[in-house]
């Protein structure tokens, strides 16, 4: 910021934009993010990843079109931190398969499941408690008034809240930081950003190839890292 007078124009503009009095939507929207683990998606998301505090909505036509695969790398990163807080799964539609989650890098000892017929209540309590890094909830019905409360709770508890909802609610307005539709494709999934605070709308194609399923390591905003082992060793049995 205290750089000498810049020589060329773009540098000058850059330093000018660093001025604290200048407010830019994209940069101001998210301060800390957790990388999604998919470089293409990270690029489309504001500040390069899922917000680490805030509510995101994921709309799917059916359970299992790839919405969980999309989040697992981020969950692995969140639970893998030193002294990580909890990761809660509220009212999941099926049993989370522990060996598979573990293989994805999610630390099971930081994870708990809540079975309830009041998912929104448990979701809000978990978000607001500040004891969770991330809270995933499956709730077919969520009035928009509640969404606002949940968003505030997520900000207060500094947790990533993920609410999975049916595709039918895409038309409704919502206070979530981010809304995305996940649709299956032949090789992977298509993520369409309906709303992205401080970002752009648009869609991203993601493939579930071994190369794409990379586990981001600990840290803040980092570009995608090389996979730990070469892809050729994968899939051999």
């Amino acid at each position, binding site marked *: 910021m205290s750089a000498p007078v810049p020589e060329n124009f773009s540098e000058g503009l850059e330093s000018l934009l660093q001025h604290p009095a200048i407010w830019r939507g994209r940069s101001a929207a998210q301060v800390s993010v957790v990388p999604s683990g998919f470089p293409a998606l990270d690029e489309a998301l504001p500040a390069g990843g899922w917000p680490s*505090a805030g509510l995101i909505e994921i709309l799917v*036509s*059916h*359970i*299992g*079109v*790839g*919405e*969980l*695969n999309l989040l*697992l790398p981020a969950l692995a990163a969140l639970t893998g931190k*030193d*002294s*990580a*807080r*909890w990761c809660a799964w509220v009212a*999941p*539609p*099926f*049993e*989370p*398969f*522990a*060996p*598979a*989650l*573990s*293989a*994805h*890098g999610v*630390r*099971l*000892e930081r*994870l*708990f*499941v*809540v*079975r*309830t017929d009041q998912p929104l*209540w*448990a979701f809000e*309590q*978990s978000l607001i*408690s*500040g*004891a*969770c890094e991330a809270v995933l909830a499956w709730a077919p019905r969520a009035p928009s008034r509640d969404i606002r409360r949940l968003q505030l709770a997520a900000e207060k*508890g*500094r*947790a990533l809240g993920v609410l999975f909802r049916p595709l039918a609610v895409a038309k409704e307005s919502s206070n979530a930081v981010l809304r995305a539709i996940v649709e*299956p*494709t032949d090789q992977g999934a298509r993520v369409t950003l309906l709303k992205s605070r401080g970002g752009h709308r648009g869609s991203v194609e993601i493939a579930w190839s*071994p190369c794409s*399923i990379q586990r981001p390591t600990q840290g803040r905003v980092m570009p995608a890292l090389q996979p730990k*082992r070469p892809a050729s*060793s*994968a*899939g*051999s*049995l």
Partner: protein
Amino acid sequence: MSSRPIRTGHVRPGETRPHAARATKGSSVALSSPPPQQALVFESRELWVALHLPWLEIEALQQGARAPSMPRPRAIIELQGQTQYVVAACERAQQFGVRRGMAMAAALALVPDLETCARDATRERQLLERLATRAYRFTPRVSLVPPDGLVLEVKGSLHLFGGADRLCRALEVDCFEVGVKPIVSLAPSPLAALALARSGKSQLITAHGVGEISALKLCALRWPTEVIERLQQVGVYTIGQALRLPRAGFARRFGKEHLAELDRLTGRDADLRDHFRLRERFRRKEDLLQELEHHDAILAALAPLLEELGEFLKVRQCGITQIACLLKHRRIPRTRCVLRFAEPAANAQHFAKLFGEKLSSLNLSEPVRGIELRSGDLVSCTPADASLWQPGEHGGENRGVAPELIEHLRARLGHESVYGLRVLESHRPETSWAAAELSARNRPPERAVEDHISWFVQRRPAWLLREPQPLVEQNGLPQRHGALRFLEGPDRVEAGMAVQGRIARDYYIARDVNGVRLWIFRDLRSHGWFMQGIFG
């Protein structure tokens, strides 16, 4: 109690006096000579604080019950002989002129809407014990003086609490918090302190000497009426006058025990007292004034008990892992409502919050008439370090809050509804995981078998069905909302030795018409198709 003189005789703290003064006492003629002020003054070895609670009867009745904003004047009535007398009156009744010892008829004439009630000795005792528990933070030497007094030996604690005056003030504040107005005084012997307090004088005397107490009336000693009357007949009205009587004659005429009491009063003899012992568990019963149905009302009635429990645990420096609340009904057996904690807890607000959740999930078929709170065993616990940062803030990774969240969820949803996950060593998918008990710490990290990670990520779904679900078949091929498209397979899994537990399956990954990737298998024995998982 605006300004209270600290009488230290003529000795300032730190200054020493020749202890020869003691020798002047106990001459054979008089118990102690009338104060030649300087001779009897020296630093005492003990200092006792006495709490006299003159309004305990009325205050005990006001405990717990949330008084309406403008309560009716109240008086406690006791039958003595043929007539009912007022034994205590609340402040408002006193404003109208109701006094102790007045006949009930006279009191009612003064205040027609006077609420008269009987004494409740149990509650008085409970209140006294509660005060004693609170007083435990000042000193371990606390003794009850039933029915309305408390003495504490505080000599060793004076420095810690910033002197006698501050300590007494802190004690007063403690009493006010419980809703009790005490008279606090301090003297080198417990009886002297009590006599001062009972005479309504909140004085602090830190050195031996009878100057202050000799002016007190004899009734402050609570001797039997006939003894006092006989003393009055010989012209003895104050303690000082009694002390001046010859010892032998006093013992013969008025009883040895009273002479011994005078000795303890002046510090000539040691005053040995039973110490109040803190209870090992907390148990408190409360009968409600009216029957309660609403959860909020029950919780509100429970709140003072929980608050008391919190105080108790704080003094004991302990926590509890279990607490039971029994709700009494008119006809049906009591409803039991139990909370269990992952870690020893001692916070009353936390208890109240959990009970709130528990009660809201409770279906009461009858209104509640009484409540009882029983704590489990005390577990010593160190209070958790409070973090400067909010959880989740920069640097504020606070794991201590996690058990509270889990307990909170469990209180409402039931213990089994919140669980962790664990990997088991098994080839059968349905037995290769299990629900795990959650604990905030000390759980070894679950480790996936590194070699299989990539393979596993590819071939195993994130969702598992509790039971394999049979799929409809058409032309020998499985269907789900239409034909399935096979993506990968087969993967053969054969496991189990026993005939019943033995499985032989060919697993495939297939995609249904909605684009959902399924994990299906064909049972090699029955040749049926089943779905077992869904790739997230």
